[in-house]
């Protein structure tokens, strides 16, 4: 917190009155924060408590009441019958391929567009820029027909191709980052007889690491949270985490304890990743949004 400014200290006059005022301010600040945090935490705690109750207890007890007997079987039902496990598997596959695809195609595109000032490059860059104006979600009305023409509907290839092929923000993050990598590095390598492929793979790509981290964080959060694309292109037979949870609403409509167990299972990996990578996630999002 060394960077934070000392908002309190300018009331550090020695008279008693200002100390009281300052004390009240401090109290109010904490009160606001605690209330805000309670609003975030209470719905989550209710979910956790509910996921440990049996169906009869869930229906008869108060939402805040602790479970009398812990019912772990809810988790098993959600994991296996509720297809959350299957969802994790499919999400993982989609994530791996989409991330690799985005990093490779995004950084290559950015390298060519930023380093070589060719007419072709300028035209293509403008085409990418213009594409950011089109709202992805309602474009699916006509994208669907094309994905269908390639016989990709119902497969994992559909979301992977869309995640890789329509990600323009990543290209911008790479371009911004490349602006700050000196040309002299590429130049001296070329002098030494390297070709442009070698320059990209040996020099540029390793230097892009921080940008890759930013892209990956934004990409993973958005894919893990996406509901629309997998719902539209993969349907019920191939669930990802979000569609598996959504499918719970039908058959388990009244079995909230099982739905809650599913939700807890799905939040746990997020929580672990968040706790470990907190700092990188914040900076990744801040860096990513500035490029909007």
């Amino acid at each position, binding site marked *: 917190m060394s960077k*934070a400014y000392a908002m309190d200290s300018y009331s550090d006059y020695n008279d008693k009155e200002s100390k009281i005022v300052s004390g009240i301010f401090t109290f109010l600040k904490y009160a606001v*924060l605690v209330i805000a945090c309670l609003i975030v935490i209470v719905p989550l705690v209710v979910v956790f408590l509910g996921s440990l109750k049996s169906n009869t207890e869930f229906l008869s007890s108060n939402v805040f009441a602790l479970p009398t007997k812990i019912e772990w079987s809810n988790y098993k039902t959600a994991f296996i019958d509720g297809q959350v496990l299957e969802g994790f598997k499919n999400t993982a596959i989609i994530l791996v391929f989409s991330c690799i695809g985005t990093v490779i195609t995004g950084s290559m595109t950015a390298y*060519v567009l930023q380093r070589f000032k060719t007419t072709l490059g300028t035209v293509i860059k403008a085409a990418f820029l213009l594409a950011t104006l089109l709202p992805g979600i309602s474009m699916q009305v006509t994208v669907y027909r094309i994905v269908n023409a390639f016989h990709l509907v119902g497969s994992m290839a559909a979301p992977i191709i869309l995640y890789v*092929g329509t990600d323009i923000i990543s290209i911008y993050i790479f371009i911004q980052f490349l602006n700050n990598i000196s040309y*002299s590095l590429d130049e001296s390598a070329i002098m030494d007889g390297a070709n442009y492929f070698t320059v990209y793979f040996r020099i540029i790509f390793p230097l892009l690491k921080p940008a890759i981290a930013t892209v990956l964080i934004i990409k993973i959060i958005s894919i893990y*949270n996406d509901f629309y694309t997998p719902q*539209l292109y993969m349907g019920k037979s191939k669930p990802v985490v979000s569609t598996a949870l959504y499918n719970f609403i039908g058959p388990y409509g009244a079995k909230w304890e099982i739905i809650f167990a599913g939700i807890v299972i799905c939040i746990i990996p997020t929580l672990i990743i*968040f706790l470990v990578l907190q700092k990188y996630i*914040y900076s990744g999002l801040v860096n990513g949004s500035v490029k909007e």
Partner: protein
Amino acid sequence: MAKNKIALSNPLGHTGKKLGGQYMNKMITVILFLLIPTLLLFIFTYIPAFNMFKYSFEERDQFGATVKFIGFENYKTIFTTPEYFSTFKNSLYYLVGSFIQLALALFLATILCSKIRASNFFKGVLFFPYMINTVAVAVIFRRFFQRGDGITNTDGTLNSIITLFGGDPVKFLSTEGLVNVCLVFVSIWRYIGFDLVMFIGAIQSVSPDIYEAAELDGANRWQVFKYIIAPGIRPIILLQMILAVKGAISVYEIPYIITGGKFGSSTFVIQTTETAFKFQKVGLASAMAVVLTIIIIIVTIIQKLAFKEEK
């Protein structure tokens, strides 16, 4: 110096005999590296965009079996049928909600940037909902606002709290108007952390010396906010406000999962996708997508103009 100039104007070019080979290598690299991304861009963005405009003047189903050119009929339908047009009214709820969210986030960010113990803990807790899967968030609040039917479902969290204090349970999700307020609340709950992190980043990027100087000059809290914090983070507030407008007209997941768009909670995007995939009216849905695109383009132009002035 002269050599430097050449290098700058033609950063990766080369002089002398090797020029031809370098040029070939350069062109091959350009073509190979751009081939796949450009193909994907055209197949999955430009062709659908072109189709979207074309289909919007047609009456057609998902398979394109019975296509009929009908001119501006689809657009007329959108702006004259209350079922479609009224969803714009719901966007206003989300727009107002977004501004409340920005104000709250700014307020919390200023608090968190002052001398606060465990500020990272508070920041983490407030941010965490942004990381939670959208469907999970929606389902959590579907339960949170539930009004029990006394047979298979009991009251949700909020109604339990209300009854605890002796009040009567409320049908939050099946009362027109109220349902939108609840959905906007969920949206704020989920997204406020993002704004908070942005604002904290912006506030902390202002040099601490300036705050110290203000302190020495005897500025009070409000003056510090008004003259130092606010101007320092003006661009980011402006950006978030514009993004809020875009967000408010493209709301989809939270209302779709919590209410399915029932009880007057539908949004324009829900209507668009239902029209396309449930009712198979691709022509009409394309026209709706075009309307949304035009709105987004207008907002983006405003964004560009606003930022030009900033600079």
